[in-house]
């Protein structure tokens, strides 16, 4: 009666294999260390070494392996069930909105916000209610489109993967929608933050099928992370 959400079982590891925890490299990795330690997860030593060529690391628990991927890919791995649990920013979940992902725990780390920013020179110079479309540079095309569509404006998104702050000054876009932590990058590039779309922290996410078919194991891990948070 509903449309299926199939799963590519052809590539599936054995159901009894170790659980996979997908972790984001980059910004969050350092903040994540204490959380993992309190949850009793000790990944192999080279896990924190960003130069290590390894992508998959065993942990002190033989039933748990860790993979280190880009923040956006954490959600993809978990949605497809390639990893059963993961940690990623709420920004990624807002962008993709996978029905296959639950986000049971706000870890309270990696705090930042998704904001609209534009050059100080143009900010507040015209009336946004007269706009019918706007050029936006962002790595969050869906968030940007939704944000502007909600006020009746068509967002034409230039999809960039970095250095968004350059886009307005070089004529690629009028505004940018990006993650802002301190605002110093914006300031250095002559931009000002005009609107906050959402506040963002990191979440523990789990795959829906895994939670439904292995409820005891997955719930135990959620409980461990919850206890680790309470300790902090």
């Amino acid at each position, binding site marked *: 009666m509903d449309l299926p*959400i199939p799963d590519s079982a052809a590539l599936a590891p054995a159901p009894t294999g170790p659980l996979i925890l997908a972790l984001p490299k980059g910004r969050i990795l350092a903040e994540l260390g204490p959380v993992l330690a309190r949850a009793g997860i000790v990944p192999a030593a080279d896990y924190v070494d960003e130069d290590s060529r390894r992508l998959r690391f065993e942990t002190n628990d033989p039933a748990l392996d860790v993979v280190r991927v880009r923040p956006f890919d954490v959600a993809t791995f978990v949605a497809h069930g390639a990893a059963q649990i993961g940690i990623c920013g709420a920004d990624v979940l807002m962008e993709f909105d996978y029905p296959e992902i639950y*986000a049971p725990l*706000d870890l309270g780390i990696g705090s930042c916000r998704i904001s609209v920013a534009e050059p100080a020179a143009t900010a507040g110079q015209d009336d946004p209610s007269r706009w019918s479309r706007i050029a936006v540079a962002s790595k969050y095309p869906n968030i940007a489109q939704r944000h502007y569509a909600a006020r009746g404006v068509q967002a034409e998104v230039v999809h960039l993967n970095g250095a968004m702050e350059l886009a307005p000054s070089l004529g690629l876009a009028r505004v940018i929608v990006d993650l802002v932590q301190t605002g110093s990058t914006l300031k250095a590039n002559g931009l000002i933050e005009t609107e906050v779309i959402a506040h963002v922290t990191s979440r523990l996410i789990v795959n829906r099928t895994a*939670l439904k078919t292995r409820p005891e194991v997955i719930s135990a891990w959620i409980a461990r992370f919850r206890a680790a948070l309470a300790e902090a």
Partner: protein
Amino acid sequence: MTDPASPFAPPAGLLPAGLMDLLPPEAEREAALVEALMAGFTRHGYERVKPPLLEFEDSLLAGSGAAVAEQTFRLMDPVSQRMMGLRADTTPQVARIAATRLGLQGRPLRLCYAGQVLRVRGSQLAPERQMPQAGIELIGTASPAADAEVATVAAEALGAVGVAPISLDITLPTMTPTLLDLSGLPAERRQGLAHALDRKDAAMVAALSAEAGVLAACLPALLAAAGPADAALAALAAAPLPQAAREIADNAAAIIAAIRRRAPGLRLTLDPAEFRGFRYHVGVAFTLYGPGRSGELARGGRYLSLNDEPATGMTLYPDAVLRAAPAAPPRPRLFLPEGTPEAVAAGFRAQGFATVAALSAADAPRALRCTHILRDGQAVPLPKE
């Protein structure tokens, strides 16, 4: 000299996104699987109907069809000048048949169907735009026994094609909306709470429901109850539910007891707070999961059919079932040299061989994908290369 291919023509063999050819042996496996599932339904008294691929959109998108309206391909009927839709789901069609042509037949009505459905967009997770469905509908009764019947008939059909172990997840899509309606919270808070429940964010649910009186006591308990059915039922029984919610919980308990009687070995989980993806369900909803990561194999639950008739049903996804079911050994192919008497060939076909007759001396058994060759009246296996 041949012309270079036009730069505007698609490469040979390219299909539109989300569509595919099924080749041997998968096409045959899928067809056999669908028939095996249907045989399982028929054994329980479900009679087969075959609605058309296309029909007028007003009937196709009525009732439960509204949930797939945005996924429905539409085209104008040049004859009637009315808009038609290509089915994205078969349930609304069966509901139409039950309400019209079979409207006078005795209730409860047991119907089953198998066919392809199309949808406008695939997702990154499920890129297919055409997929098979095989399902059952039980129309005209609101009893818990009916819900238990559709769930166990579907699970039994899966078991009969070799899928094991199966687990059945039961959700109560009306529970959360009922509790939120009773809470008297302002719409904004209610939306935030629904969002937190949807994500299964326990801390946020506890924080948001803290001042909501009756909810504060039961929402976090409901969320924590999700898991194996017996423990979940015990948690539900202990939660201080208001009357309307208590009725939903009691109904679920009755259905689970009925399922246990019919299928004692089936693994059951219950998630009372879940309401994601069950937009038109008015009672319990079901999801059947296969082993390991084979994922969702079937979905269903209680809904209102046309004329507000109570109904419940299950839809199986044969493409997903195909990935979860063990592959049956392929039918052996026997190469018949030229001049083999027809009676000999028929004898081997009766034994289960597919016979491949040589039409010329140039035909080679291996090139024709044969596994056996006929020599001195015997089917001799061809050596593996």
